[in-house]
């Protein structure tokens, strides 16, 4: 079974601050990590590899600074890692991002299963996985919580509002994996050391993927950000209730009564 996992390296969301003056996001000093849902996607792929054999390749679009994160994925059990890196990729929206990833996946085909996390913690548009599926013209199944192979086709369980669906589809398919659906394994210490010291990552740029500058990055995007707003917090009373639990509760009962209006 040939499996590919698309990973995104994202800043830790709760460390991100917004500069009201410059209307920009302050990324300095914010730690990066492999996006949580993507770790669940990688774990799902590694689990099937343990069961059915084959290979798991990870790909990620980003600057060379993301290499250590790809090596971490290899330490977790991936066989190979490819970084899609080109200045021309910067500023890609979901249309351009999915196009770049699809171009890399085409270059890696044939494959059986492509994985993505359901959404990234920063943008969380949830649009990239179903967009890639459309570029590649393969069935896309989103919000998958478990995946299995029955000898001739993949069987996926996916979350739908308040319930689930079980879906059967022949490979190749693309799945987006639900955040928290499994527990990602820890990196193997020896593999980690080997990856850090000896593994040479493959890096593909725009030309390697056969894309034109007009097909990626800002130029290849179909949406534009016209401005950023800090979501104004709702004005709250911020009234601190102190005293004995009895006193606090008396005040809470009053507040609950008032909230009926």
């Amino acid at each position: 079974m040939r499996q590919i996992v698309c990973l995104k390296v994202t800043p830790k969301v709760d460390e991100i601050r917004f500069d009201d003056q410059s209307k920009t996001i302050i990324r300095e000093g914010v730690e990066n990590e492999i996006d949580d849902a993507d770790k669940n996607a990688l774990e799902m792929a590694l689990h099937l590899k343990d069961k059915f054999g084959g290979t798991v390749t990870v790909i990620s679009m980003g600057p060379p600074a993301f290499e250590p994160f790809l090596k971490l994925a290899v330490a977790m059990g991936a066989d190979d890692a490819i970084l899609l890196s080109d200045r021309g990729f910067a500023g890609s929206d979901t249309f351009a991002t999915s196009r770049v990833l699809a171009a890399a996946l085409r270059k890696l085909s044939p494959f059986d299963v492509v994985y993505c996390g359901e959404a990234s913690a920063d943008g969380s548009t949830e649009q990239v996985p179903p967009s890639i599926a459309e570029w590649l013209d393969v069935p896309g199944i989103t919000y998958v919580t478990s995946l299995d192979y029955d000898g001739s086709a993949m069987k996926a369980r996916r979350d739908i509002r308040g319930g689930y669906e079980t879906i059967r589809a022949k490979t190749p398919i693309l799945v987006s994996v639900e955040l928290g659906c499994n527990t990602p394994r820890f990196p193997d210490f020896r593999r980690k050391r080997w990856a850090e010291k000896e593994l040479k990552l493959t890096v593909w740029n725009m030309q390697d993927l056969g894309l034109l500058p007009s097909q990626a990055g800002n130029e290849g995007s179909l949406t534009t950000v016209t401005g950023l707003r800090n979501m104004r917090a709702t004005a709250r009373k911020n009234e601190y209730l102190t005293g004995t639990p009895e006193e606090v509760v008396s005040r809470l009962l009053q507040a609950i009564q008032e909230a009926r209006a």
Partner: protein
Amino acid sequence: MSRPEVERGGVLVFLEQTDGAIERVSLEVLGKAREIANRLSKRVTGVLLGTGVEVAAEECARRGADLVLVGESSLLKDYTTETYVAAILPVLKERDPDIVLCGATHNGTALASALAVRLQAGLLAHVVDLELEEGTGVLLGAVPGFGGSIVAMCKCRGRPQMATVKPGVFIPLGVDEARAGEVRKFGPTITPDVVRQVILEKSIGSGPDISRAERVVIAGLGCGGDLTLARKLAEVLHADLAVSRPLADKGIAPKEMVVGSTGSGLNAKLAVVLGVSGASHFTSGIRNAKSVIAINKDPNATIFRHSDYCVKDDVNRIVPELISRIEKDSKVGSR
């Protein structure tokens, strides 16, 4: 005066149904689409796919749509991206809408993403507001990012301009018998060979919709992974029970109960938040709650900044007392 056979342009809304019942978010989007179309002096066309959707189609025609196109086929009973794309794409190509809107549900997001690739159209993700740019009439969408704490104002290059809309942000129009739109069937040209994924089993929950609850008690990690106390408080308050994301990730509660950017936004009159630290992806979910009570033993918890009444104490010390006092005073318990 004869009308052209196909009205081109305007606003097109994908109307999502589950087992024949229209999704509430589709009615919300339809209401906003009506407002946008009025400002542009254009029409609103809804597209509804499935089987047994006549009642839902009539409802949409009375709640904002000028025309509801109904595509009936047994192949469209349940959503799969390939069948829905195959059915809708010809409609989009024929009608060439200026704007395409759809609810940001799991299936709505998948459909809109696939259509955007096919149409080479810009797609704004789960917007929390839509407006028209002064002078140009270009669609502007407020796209939340970074857990909902920051909103980017975005627009599309070219046409159609597409957006998915976060559930719960717009208000559906009431049923207006006077301005009933037209319901028209179209024969979707869809053949079995389009089908590449087969739904073997489907189970839809019927739990309460916390985004519409009047009172909500929300349990977080500070409740120690046990919902007993929170559930009891919800019971005496006649409130719905909800949780923060980590509790769902741990399997303590189903995902439908999650409040925040990855779950539901509340529109409650009262939210009682127990043992939640208050990360931004959570607090975006209580933004529209009228009154917020927070109880947390961590005095520095950010949740207090987003609350009206703040209790820096252990949930286990305050909540039992609160429950017993409410039980004694039925006036408080009743809504």
